[in-house]
């Protein structure tokens, strides 16, 4: 089964990937954080290492994931994302943490 997920990137990563704020991604199989980021990095290889560690797949400390008004940053990477994200109704948002600078 293929799902179309809408991902919102922060400005720094939009500039890097030379893409718009909202990126549509085709996901085969279960829609998880890991599957979404895998698809994102496949489409935009320059983003590898910028959102999560390239080896461990752990989220970078100052990156957060939000969807459906929930902070999903600390959810297991293989856990299913909310249905509204999986069907494209709600955005999966990658956000730079508010940490000064």
């Amino acid at each position, binding site marked *: 089964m293929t799902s179309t997920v809408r991902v919102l990137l*922060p*400005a*720094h*990563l939009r*500039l*890097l990937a030379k893409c718009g704020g909202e990126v549509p991604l085709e996901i085969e199989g279960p829609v998880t954080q890991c599957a979404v980021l895998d698809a994102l990095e496949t489409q935009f290889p*320059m983003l*590898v*290492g*910028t*959102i999560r560690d*390239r*080896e461990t797949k752990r989220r*970078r*400390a*100052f*990156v957060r994931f939000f969807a459906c008004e929930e902070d999903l940053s600390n959810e297991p990477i293989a856990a299913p994302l909310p249905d509204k994200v999986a069907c494209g109704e709600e955005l999966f948002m990658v956000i*730079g*943490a508010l*940490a000064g*600078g």
Partner: protein
Amino acid sequence: MSQVRVLVGTRKGAFVLTSDAKREKWHVDGPHFAGWEIFHVKGSPVNPERLYASQHTEWFGQLIQRSDDGGKTWEPVDNKFAYDGTTGTHLWYDGTPHPWEFKRVWHIEPSLSEPDTVYAGVEDAALFRSTDGGKSWHELTGLRGHGSGKYWQPGAGGMCLHTIILDPTNPQRIIVAISAAGAFRSDDGGKSWKPINNGLKSPYVLPDPDAAVGHCVHRIAMHPARPNVLFMQKHWDVMRSDDAGDNWVDVGESLPSDFGFPIDVHSHEPETVYVVPIKSDSEHYPPDGKLRVYRSRTGGNDWEALTNGLPQKNCYVNVLRNAMCVDKLDPCGVYFGTTGGQVYGSPDGGDHWIPLVRDLPAVLSVEVQSLS
């Protein structure tokens, strides 16, 4: 007509400054990579249109950007800096073992002969090399694997490899410097390394002030025509070596402060050296609020203050280790950037200074290309 291109890395982006050979009027292009820390930008001596930039934020990590048109456009290349083999530990600030962790690239040094070969000095300290224009990076493990690695300790700015010097007369010779481990030299193209810190003294910092490793070297400079002569700005002390680093002597005693970060050598006068004395340990701004470059025309010991055009009151900026350079024109141009966002240049070896640009973000690095 020659042109000059100054490559400026700042806390919030990169800027490219260009001028003709008079070096009086400057065009400012940027910011490139707005909002990102640009630790270093440097061009290939073989192909001056080939530039490399180290791009970083705490949020999104490390990237390396490459330009093949002199900085007009950029493309990200590989950002995988994976330590090779067993990672091991170095000392943490409290003296306990701490695992090596990659944080950022401090310094990029393109090869003197191959446009696709480039070196990267990283934090935690290690040396990487790419032979495909930055598309892949491989660690030169002999440095970190040197037996002293477990005793290296970070300075206040992190445990960074910030200086890479390639010997133009001997492709096998590479010199690097690490805060706070010291200086190291390879005579076999980076396979094996030895510490070259004899003569450095770090009282109140190290249990043994004459230790073989552990010294906080801030920067080393070499004149390409005389590669055995090195000049070093250490945390404290300005040092000189006449035997490629095997032995060092103090040549900075008469400076108002022998603390500082950058050091460089005049492009046509191998005995003419530049430093920017800074008050320390805690202030990190110029003594007396006067921004003064000091020049020695005798290879050290005798220094003169260069002040013409530089602020001589109420100036409390710093000049970081990668933020000074010289061009190859005649007369030699000297450039430096400050944490206050000014980039100063002198078209006459330091006698007169003008601000090339005044209000950039804090300047992390300044490099210059002399273009024909």
